[in-house]
């Protein structure tokens, strides 16, 4: 069983990944998200995914976190690839496996046949690699950075303090909310209620009765927290000083510079390519670029 508190909290070690400045990590994450959206070839997305996985390996994450990450990645990949392979609607499409033939009595007529399509499988792989890369990098950022450094990093990146504070505080309360959810489910069971009962009405009833106490408790907690911070002279619009500071190292400059220039370059190439294939703009001097975008990116 996973310990929710330890899964949320960062595990601070002395690896290269841990030592990267939070601003560089956040910038890298943003650039990776640009890349994940811009790239659409399985090979290039696979490289992005491998970068994410390698970073996780270098960070020497504890086994429980690796386990959770593996569950997210495997379930995400399997779910996306399989569903896309089954329900791919684009053309052309090549059948690689027949689950239900359209000639099968009754079921065949109802479903019009159920097939696994090669193109759907590839399309699913592209989506899954995007999703998995971002999950790995997002969790890696949270798991290798102290929340206080993440807060300072966000503030230094000119994110409004209110927003940064809310984000980090929400992270801090996730284990509490998960523990409370477990308690509510136990309460429901002990009152003879089966949360696992299937059916739309049952699912709705389960959701409402489970969420009500959790939300009510969260609102009460938020209200106490608000009183507590207001009692300590917090004013969202007033300027404030900061005890902690962050220092950018040479390696951080390299990571930030590389990530920004790489993602900008890919995004620019893809835009030029889109302009070309939509017959909006073409320059013969950019032929190599179009080729790169069409085959690799």
């Amino acid at each position, binding site marked *: *069983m996973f310990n929710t508190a330890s899964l949320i*909290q960062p595990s601070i070690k002395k690896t290269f990944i841990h030592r990267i400045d939070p601003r560089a990590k956040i910038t890298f994450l943003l650039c990776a998200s640009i890349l994940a959206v811009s790239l659409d070839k399985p090979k290039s997305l696979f490289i992005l995914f491998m970068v994410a996985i390698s970073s996780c390996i270098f960070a020497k994450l504890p086994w429980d976190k690796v386990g959770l990450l593996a569950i997210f990645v495997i379930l995400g990949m399997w779910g996306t690839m399989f569903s896309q392979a089954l329900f791919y609607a684009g053309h052309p499409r090549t059948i690689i496996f027949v689950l239900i033939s359209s000639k099968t009595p009754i079921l065949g007529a109802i479903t019009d046949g159920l097939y696994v399509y090669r193109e759907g499988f590839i399309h699913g792989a592209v989506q899954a690699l995007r999703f998995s890369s971002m999950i790995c990098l997002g969790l890696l950022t949270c798991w290798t950075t102290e929340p206080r450094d993440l807060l300072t990093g966000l503030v230094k990146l000119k994110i409004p303090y209110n927003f940064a504070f809310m984000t980090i505080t929400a992270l801090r309360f996730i284990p509490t909310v998960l523990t409370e959810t477990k308690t509510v489910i136990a309460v429901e069971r*002990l009152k003879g209620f089966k949360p696992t009962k299937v059916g739309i009405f049952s699912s709705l009833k389960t959701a409402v009765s489970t969420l*009500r106490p959790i939300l009510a408790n969260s609102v009460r907690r938020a209200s106490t*927290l608000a009183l507590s911070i207001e009692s*300590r002279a917090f004013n969202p619009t007033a300027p*404030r000083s900061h005890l902690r500071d962050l220092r950018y190292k040479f390696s951080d400059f390299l990571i930030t510079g590389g990530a920004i220039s790489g993602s900008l370059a890919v995004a620019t190439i893809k835009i030029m390519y889109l302009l070309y294939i939509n017959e909006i703009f073409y320059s013969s001097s950019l032929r190599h670029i179009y080729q790169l975008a069409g085959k690799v990116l």
Partner: protein
Amino acid sequence: MRGSLSIDNLKFTYTGREKPTIKGINLSVQPGEFVLLTGPTGCGKSTLLKTLNGIIPHQSGGKMEGTVKVNGLDTNTAEMQDICKQVGMVFQSPDDQLFSTVIEDEVAFGLENLCLGKNEIDRGIDLALRKVGMKNLRQAQIGTLSGGQKQRVAIASVLAMEPRILALDEPLSQLDPVGAKEVLDVIKRLNVEQNITVILVEHRIHEIAHMASRILVMDEGKLVLDKPTGKAFAKLEIFEKLGLRVPEPIKLFCALGFSERPLTNKQAIETVQDRIENGFLKKITSVNRDRLPRRLGNEVVSAKDVSFSYSKKGECVLKNIDLSIREGEVVALMGSNGSGKTTLLLHLAAILKPSSGRIEVFNADTCKISPYSLASQVGVVFQNPDLMLLSDTVWGEAMFGPQNLHLEKADELARQSLEAMSIGKLMTDSPLALSRGQRLRTAVASIISMQPKLILLDEPTTGQDRIHIEEMMAYLIPKDGGKTVVFCTHDVQTAIRYADTILVMDKGVIAQGSPESVFEQEDILRRANLSAPDSYHIAKKLGLESIFMVEELEDTLKCLILPH
């Protein structure tokens, strides 16, 4: 003057309410005073406290009349940042008011809001942590601290702003005896050594009265008593009427008709010994007052060599527990936070399964059943009743279980349970809109409407008035017996009053037996951070054995009073 406070004809009405919560309060507090503010749930104590540091009216909405001045600063017109430097506010639950992961950041927060320089912030953190005795833990993770330590961090986080008044809203209610003592020691030290004015809202008068210089009692938005501590207990009618628990020595002396009002055991013992020497009391001889044991039925819970840890390599939370509970038995689980009380309770409801060993509840191995299958037989009331309120009306709560279990006459069972908890008139109300006491009683009603044979209560007395505790326990544990109840508590008096058997836990069971036999083992009590009740200490000093409740001591001493 630094640390002074004056309130003039204060009235406050919350938005959307017709009646005011505060109804014309006048109060003046001098620098260095230690004021204990008490009263029943919902009387307006917390609201009054919020007016002291400007949360009311600046952040609350509602209508405020009258003036509140702290160190001469009118909270109505002053900026929040200025008021915060005068009054530091600490709340009930340390987990809800702390948001940082590291102590240093939490304490720095207020100073950063005041826009101080790095050096000043650094010095402020050091000073504040030194005042609460946590200087060495500056870089510690807040998640690793005990409840008492967290509350001390909360105090340090406001002390950093160097307020001269400290306003604390039930800061002990969520703490075990050790944590409560840690926090009280810090508050007392700040009051005595730093001359900080303390205004402390608390139900646990019996634990704090001896530290306070003045006691205020509120009821329905008004101050009904404002006296120096020495004179506050001259008459106990007000405290009795409002269901407030007074220190045992005072209750004892009042019942005996003595004029003295001792706040501590030491004072009480000296006074009684004086009276014996002066011929007002007969010389005390040992009196043995064994309680009659309840008639018990068949075994309903059996635990054999049960151990449990939350993860494979984690520390054992329960170690080699052997336990037998019989029908009609009332068992109290006692011990510090983290001693395994709640974990054991969850095992009895089959929510947790032992890592090794075996637990049988109503002859069913809990490893082989789900909590769902125990629903009609075992009822659990969790520490936080809010997590038990699943429906949109009080009636819906009471009907939830019986309907799911398809019980016959569900309506009748629900009605009976609500009446038993004195909330029959609130049937159509939303449970979320009720007071904490009413919410707890709604949660209890939702359990007893299923008529479970075994009732498990996790800290049922936390944050409750004496009257609410007594009402609830009287229903759950009728004098003629019949119901099997297991409850976790830190409250020694509740355990002694209601339990047949006490289990003292420290991962495993370190003592088990009748309240009398357990509370006579001083080494066990020390290990579990428990203390026998005041009446026991007074009786023992006077040479009386086996007296644990104030009523027992009162009866014994009444027989010894000589006519004059």
